[in-house]
Structure formats: C-alpha cells, structure tokens
C-alpha cells in the first residue's frame, strides 16, 4: 500500500498544475457547501427555535380531524348515501373532560400542559375599537408551556390573579388603543358580554400578529367573557424534548380523539419551504462537486494515457490488475482528500468572513448579522461526499488502466 501511495504521488507530481486545478475545484465545491450550509441551517435553526420558543410544542384542539359520522351514513355503510351541508347542532362544546386529560398529560414524563380558552373580543377604549383574540390562561401552568413571561416588558403574568379582570396585551396593541399600564378598557365578546378590564402587563414577542392582536386574561375571566363557563378549547403542551412532538401528538390524538397538532404540523408551510431550500442548496453544491469530479476524472484519464508505458512495465513486473486499479483509485482519492481538506479550511474562512458582515439595519430578530450554524458534521459530510465523488470519478480510468495489455505497449515502444 505504501508502494502504491508512493507511485501515485510520483505520477500526480508530474501533472502538478493540472492536479492543483482539480484539487482546487473539489475544494471550492466543499467550501461552498460548508458556507451555504452554515448560512441556511443557521437561519433555519434560528427560525425553528423561534417557533419552538413562542408556540406550544403540541396543541390539542376541540375539533375532530374528520367530522363525526352521521347516523344515516352509519346505518348504510355500503350504501350510496352522501350527506352534505350538515350544520353543527350546537356550538362547539370545547374539549370534553379537559380536566381528566390535563391530569393524564401532566403525569407524563417531560411534559407540561396548560388549559386554554381562546375567543374573540372587541377591545374598546374611548372611541377606538380593536378586535383581538383573548387567550384565557392559568398563569401557573401557562408559565410552564410558554415564554410569555420572558417577552413581558411590563408587569408579570401572576399579576392576572392579583387584579380582578386583569389583561395583558402586546405593546403594539396598547399603542394602537392608546392605553398604558393600569388603564381600564372595555372588552365585548361576540356573545354580548361586556367586561371592564384593567391592563396589568405588556409584552413584545417581535411577531406582529401576536403583538397587535392578542391579549391574555385569566381562564376563568375569559370563560365569563365568552359565556362558556368551564369550557377549555385548547390544551397546550411543552416538551422537554421537542423532537418527540410529532409522535406524541399522534399518540395523544389516537388516545383522546381530539385533533392534536405538533409545532411541525402547524408550521408545515415553513418547513416545506425549508425542505425545498435544502434541496436547492444540495443540488447546487452537488453540481459544483460534480464538476470537480469531472476535473478529477480528466486528470486521472490524462495520467493513465500518459503513463501507458509505466502501467505496462508494472504489469510485466508482476503487478496485478487490482494493483493498477488501486494505483489510480488512490490518485483520485488523494486528490479528493486534498480538495476536501483545503475546502474545509476555505469553508471555515468563508464562514468567519460571513460572520464579519454587518447589515447596518436592526432586523426584527435583534441581530444585524448572518446567523450561522457551525456544525462539524457538515464538514464531515462535504468531505465524505468529495472523496466519494473523486473515487467514483477515478474508477473509470483506473479500470481502463488495469485492463491495458502490456504486450501491446511493449511491442509498440520498442
């Protein structure tokens, strides 16, 4: 093996410039892959962490995934009965036996659960009306499933309990209404209930729809406002291990029958975009590596062509076809490895270069620079792919070399 390496080195050294060019091609492919992956994954990881941070990991809703079967359809399972235009008999009842379900969920390891009643309301202050979603919460439990405490700029979530009809709203909403901390505003629900509520806290999440159109009140208070006593229409869960969200959601839905959505399902649109983004990224860098692989194919082919005599003498000396094949495969892999190492260095330099870039504008994320993921596995993946591509590129000329008939060459060279 050492001998093959020495021979390979000697042969590549003869074509130093060409070798350098193809090594550099591989390096560029690897470097771009690493840099782009750092950018995209950085952004995506940031985005997902924001989602995971703000939204519940799992939401149990007071809906069924499919409408309940109608009696007529049940009576004629095979029959050509189609029922359309079914209207709900009475208003949605909320999650049945929410208390029992909550207790079961809270008994699970690594799961925090909180009951919620959401409903629309009109907030009125002076002559201004703004339609909002009021989220009725249990402050102690809610603190365990969400980060609103962290996002609060004034007051605390427990203040809801200290004040009768307390309300926490977004800063942007407060600005629109022209209210401040301690002001009392009127809330009118679609059922016609009017409560006078006191602003006890303000928050800012950075997400416009939340900051402008959401308010928090006590669960009990919202039940009164919505005229739905003892009703809970959502159970929100937070998990210690986010990756369990999807399977756990399926498990809960199977057990309870209530529609249960993981954060992944709720953000399917974004995640699909990410999948497409990643596909584009991998194909572009894959294409660069493919071009680099052609470079390697080219140089190994050239070397095989130029080294016909050397191959012939090695074979006549007693080198086997396998030896010759390995000799050129090694050259491809060495070129791929050199390219990979150089590419990793170049990629790291590019990432640090990107890290220096300042946009000069304050982004909503509070950062004015690229969010970069520095993950050693990306380096490993890119390098592995480069070496593999180089190896494959070398296989074809290597096989050609190994099949060369020394007699033909020796005869011709005399």
């Amino acid at each position, binding site marked *: 093996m050492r001998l093959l390496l020495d021979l390979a080195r*000697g042969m590549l050294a003869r074509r130093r410039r060409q070798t350098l060019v193809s090594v550099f091609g591989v390096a560029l492919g690897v470097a771009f892959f690493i840099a782009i992956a750092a950018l995209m994954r950085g952004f995506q990881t940031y985005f997902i962490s924001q989602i995971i941070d703000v939204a519940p990991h799992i939401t149990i809703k007071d809906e069924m995934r499919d409408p309940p079967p109608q009696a007529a359809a049940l009576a004629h399972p095979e029959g050509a009965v189609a029922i359309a235009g079914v209207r709900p008999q009475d208003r949605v009842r909320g999650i049945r036996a929410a208390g029992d379900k909550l207790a079961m969920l809270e008994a699970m390891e690594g799961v925090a659960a909180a009951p919620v009643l959401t409903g629309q309301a009109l907030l009125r202050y002076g002559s201004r009306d703004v339609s909002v979603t009021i989220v009725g919460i249990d402050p102690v439990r809610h603190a365990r499933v969400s980060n609103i405490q962290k996002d609060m700029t004034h007051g605390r979530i427990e203040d809801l309990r200290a004040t009768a009809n307390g309300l926490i709203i977004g800063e942007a909403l407060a600005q629109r209404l022209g209210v401040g901390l301690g002001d009392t505003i009127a809330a009118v629900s679609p059922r016609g209930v009017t409560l006078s509520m006191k602003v006890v806290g303000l928050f800012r999440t950075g997400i416009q729809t939340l900051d402008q159109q959401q308010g928090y009140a006590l669960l009990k208070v919202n039940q009164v406002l919505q005229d739905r006593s003892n009703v809970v229409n959502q159970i929100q869960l937070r998990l210690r291990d986010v990756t369990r969200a999807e399977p756990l959601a399926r498990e809960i839905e199977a057990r309870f029958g209530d529609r249960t959505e993981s954060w992944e399902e709720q953000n399917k649109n974004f995640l699909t975009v990410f999948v497409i983004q990643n596909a584009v990224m991998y194909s572009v860098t894959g294409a660069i590596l493919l071009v680099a692989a052609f470079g390697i194919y080219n140089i190994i082919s050239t070397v095989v062509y130029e080294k016909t005599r050397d191959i012939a003498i090695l074979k006549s*000396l007693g080198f086997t076809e396998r030896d010759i094949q390995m000799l050129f495969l090694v050259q491809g892999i060495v070129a791929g490895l050199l390219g990979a190492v150089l590419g990793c260095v170049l990629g790291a330099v590019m990432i640090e270069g990107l890290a220096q870039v300042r946009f000069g504008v304050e982004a909503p994320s509070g950062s004015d620079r690229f969010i970069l993921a520095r993950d050693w596995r990306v380096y490993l993946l890119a390098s592995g792919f480069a070496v593999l591509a180089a190896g494959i590129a070398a296989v074809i000329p290597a096989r050609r070399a190994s099949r060369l008939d020394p007699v033909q060459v020796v005869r011709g060279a*005399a």
Partner: protein
Amino acid sequence: MSDGPADPPLLAAERVTRTLPEGVTLVADISLRFARGEFVAITGPSGSGKSSLLYLLGLLDRPTEGRILLEGRDTAELDAEELAALRLARLGFVFQFHFLLPEFSSLDNVLIPIRRLGRLDAAAARAQAMRLLGTLGLDAAATKLPEQLSGGMRQRVAIARALANDPALILADEPTGNLDTKNAAAVFDIFERLVREEGRTVIVVTHDPDLARRCSRRVHLVDGRVVSDGPASG
C-alpha cells in the same frame, strides 16, 4: 549445469502456437526446453516472431495452442494473478526500451519489484537494491533520475530492476538495440556473469550475430517457426 533426469526443466514450451483473433499466426508449433544456467540467443529476421515467443515464454501472453511449463507447472492452469505473482518472483524482463519510471530514482525503480513482493523489510530491500546497483557499477547513479543517466546506464538500471527479486530466468528482448557496441558488450558481460557465476538462465533476443555468438545456445526463427536450435558458436 543441466538438470538431473528427475528434475523438470526450468522452462519448457510444448507445441506452442499463438494466433491472433484476426487470424495472424505469430509463432507456430514451437517446442523448446530451457535448463538452469543456459544462455540462449533467439535470432531471426525481422517479423519472424522472436518477441512474440519471448512474451509467451515470459508469461506475458498466453498460447492459443500448446502449453508453457515453468519449473514443471503448467501455466495454462494459472489465472492472471498467479501468473503475475510468478513474473514478480521468478522472472526478470529487460526490453529494448528501458521502461524506467521517470519520476523515480534508479534506487526507487529497483525497489519497486522488491517492495511489491514484500519479502524484505525496508532496510533489507534497500540493501538488496544498492547491492544490485553496485554489482552493475551504478553506485553513483542510485539517487539519479533516469533522465540524468546515459542510455547504457539506464539499461543497466533496468537489468538491476529485472534482477531485483533474484529471478531464476531473465528474458531480454533486444536489450542492446538502443546501445552502442561498447555498452552492448557490457550488457552481455553482465548476462554472462549471471549465467556463469549465479547459475541463472538468460534468454536474449538479438539481431547482432557477434553477440549471439557469445551465448551457449542459439534458437533461430523464421516465419514463427524454429528452423535451427544448437550451440551458438556453430
């Protein structure tokens, strides 16, 4: 010098014919035996099949009919890898062109077959290669690249490489074809020593009647057939 009655000859060709797929016959119905310590010249006009015969005897090519036996073993039964292993360990080739690897020094070129065989450790392999270069008067050339050597020196390095694994049989195809008379005589001096002092068998294709006369036996080919086989001085 000759084999005992029970011993098989070092190399034997039995009714060997080599025909190309296109129908050209390179050599036809050749039967020859070569004993240990023989110094054989193969002569004949251009195109008479001398090289073709040498490639067959050297296991680089396979006969289409007949068989080649090396030390009593029928080589037709061996696969390509086994033939390669035999060439590596038992045979040494010298061609008209030296075929030295241009990127490597004389020493490294001689080391290639030794390292491939892998019987010696690095130090012993080096010592063996240096000893061979030394006996051929190439001590000073050891670290030089082929392009830095004269034609005669290159050919002697090629001979050193052929001798690297201490082969029983050396096959040479017009090894002096590119050399002047003095260098050609030097190459034959080496061959003579290999036969006389070391008991090896040397089979050499040559055009030169003077050089052929230095051998102990001469096989003359015409149109791919042996027309005479006897003492060279005749």
